[in-house]
């Protein structure tokens, strides 16, 4: 009797411990670091050492200095474009996947996701040698007679960043769209067909609206990943592709201005959180109406 009671108590303690751990993990590894960098954003730097006195100086500088807001805005536009390109390319791919039967569908999906297993830096290197003036793309276009001479259109500029980011992030767009398309009940499509709707009508009135939650989360995924990236712009952006991520990175790498870097991160975090919330909101309102 008492023995059974103590094992019960021990089990309860264990489950309490697990609960505490489960809550402690996100607190320790997510909330505390976030709080620390929020606090840092109110410090300043003097002669290479951090001054621990609260100031709004970093935020004032962000909003008043003529270089930060334009770069910030351009970066947002760039990342929205990346998201749009990814969606436009990923949607047909995902739709095609759902038309496949059985094993083929998942085999092909896996193939599309294989690039995610590769190192991100290696992919950028590879893409860069494809995009160069003597790179594969230019050589192919010249050989095919499409261009007379190699073009600098995709060499070390914003276009190169746009293309590289889109290529890197497409798998992240395919997956959520595929999942939402797959979740659409076949009965709805058959009912639409029975009622005399054409294939296009069925797609526009049933498939597309029901897949929008997937599109919304794909877009917010891609946007968030793109805006946090500094390596791609650094490596393929050249002189005109200067993005917010590069400014942010320089505050930690070469400038040793952690407080200002933290303030810039806060600005970035706000945009990222907004993007996630928007994606979430679209995803849910459409999803629950089914």
């Amino acid at each position, binding site marked *: 009797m008492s023995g059974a009671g103590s094992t019960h108590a021990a089990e309860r303690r264990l489950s309490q411990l697990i609960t505490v751990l489960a809550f402690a993990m996100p607190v320790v590894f997510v909330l505390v670091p976030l709080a620390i960098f929020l606090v840092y954003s109110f410090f300043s730097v003097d002669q290479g050492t951090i001054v621990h006195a609260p100031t709004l100086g970093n935020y004032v500088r962000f909003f008043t200095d003529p270089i930060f807001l334009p770069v910030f805005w351009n970066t947002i536009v760039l990342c929205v474009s990346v998201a749009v390109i990814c969606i436009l390319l990923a949607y047909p791919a995902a739709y095609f996947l759902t038309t496949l039967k059985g094993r083929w569908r998942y085999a092909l999906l896996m193939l599309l996701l294989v690039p995610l297993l590769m190192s991100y830096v290696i992919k950028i290197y590879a893409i860069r040698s494809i995009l160069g003036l003597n*790179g594969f793309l230019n050589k192919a276009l010249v050989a095919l007679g499409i261009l007379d001479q190699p073009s600098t259109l995709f060499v070390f500029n914003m276009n190169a960043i746009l293309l590289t980011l889109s290529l890197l992030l497409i798998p992240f767009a395919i997956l959520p769209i595929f999942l939402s398309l797959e979740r659409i009940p076949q009965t709805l499509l058959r009912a639409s067909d029975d009622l005399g709707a054409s294939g296009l009508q069925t797609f526009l009135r049933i498939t597309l609206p029901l897949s929008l939650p997937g599109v919304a989360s794909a877009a917010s995924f891609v946007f968030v990943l793109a805006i946090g990236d500094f390596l791609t712009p650094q490596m393929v952006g050249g002189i005109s592709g200067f993005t917010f991520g590069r400014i942010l990175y320089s505050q930690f790498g070469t400038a040793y*201005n952690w407080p200002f870097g933290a303030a810039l991160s806060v600005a970035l975090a706000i945009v990222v959180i907004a993007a996630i919330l928007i994606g979430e909101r679209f995803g849910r309102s459409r999803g629950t109406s089914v």
Partner: protein
Amino acid sequence: MGLKKAFLRLATIGLGIGLMTSAALAANLRVLAWDGYADPDWVKDFTAATGIGVDVVFIGSDDEIWAKIKGSEGQDFDVFAVNTAQLQRYIKADLVSPIDITKLPNQKEVLPRFRDLSQVSGDTKDGKVYGIPFCFDSIGLIYDTDKVKPAPTSMSVLWDPAYKGKILAYDNGEHNFSFTALTLGYKDPFNLDAEQMAAVKAKLVELKRNVLSFYTTADEAQQIYQNNDVALIWANYGQQQVKALQKIGAHVAYVNPSEGALAWLDNWVISKGVRDNAAAEKWIDFMLSKKIGGELSERTGFGNTVVESSSAGGNDKLVWLNNVEDPLKRSDLWNEVKATP
């Protein structure tokens, strides 16, 4: 009986070894150096020649040297290697001892530019010598010999519109402000006043418009060179970068610009906590021998201070890197340069 004897002998040998190592440890010279500055064969030769044992610890960054020396207030090492830009910081913190160069006969035989140490900025303070130059490399200009004719002599070629979009520059505000200041003819590129800073910034915006991209690693520059039409590279990695490019078959050559090339210079210094000053002096003198100088350049590709090497010709003007007036300011301005459309 035989077993007992064997045990006894073993114990004696063990004791002997123990005594020997502890004696050796007590007298060994403790050296802190970059990889390539104290190769095993040199250490062996040094011990054979002087009878002084050596313990070498290798380091990987300037910060690591500072942490090791400052952490023990110089007590853990006798001799270490540090560059001229860093050395003043050690002198200020009283972590290094002045060196009596009359104890270094080989110092009289070094290349002319290193003979008068009062002329090597950063090596002396208040008339006392603290650093003995050992290894250096310049940050010159790599040019493609097929595309750039005649051979350039000045960094101003980087602004030449003929090479627009064919130039690789380095992504670092500090160095870029310094070399552009030299190109504009300013005396002290490491201490710019507000007016000079503005002029250099405007000049860098012009440079940016002539450049294909800014690189950060030597590998990266090499890859961009292979896939694009590149004529000129601002060679942050100096000789190593040239040699790597030549190895892949690129037709490139290297030049130190006439207005002066930035260059780093590593020195041997004696720490405050040195146990045997004479042994430390012997080590430095040994490192200044012609044999080691030649081998250093052969193995690392860097310049040595004793025999001529490809890092710099005898008449090339070199400007030893120094701490800049305000690294934060330069980094901010560099971001502004990059953000300028």
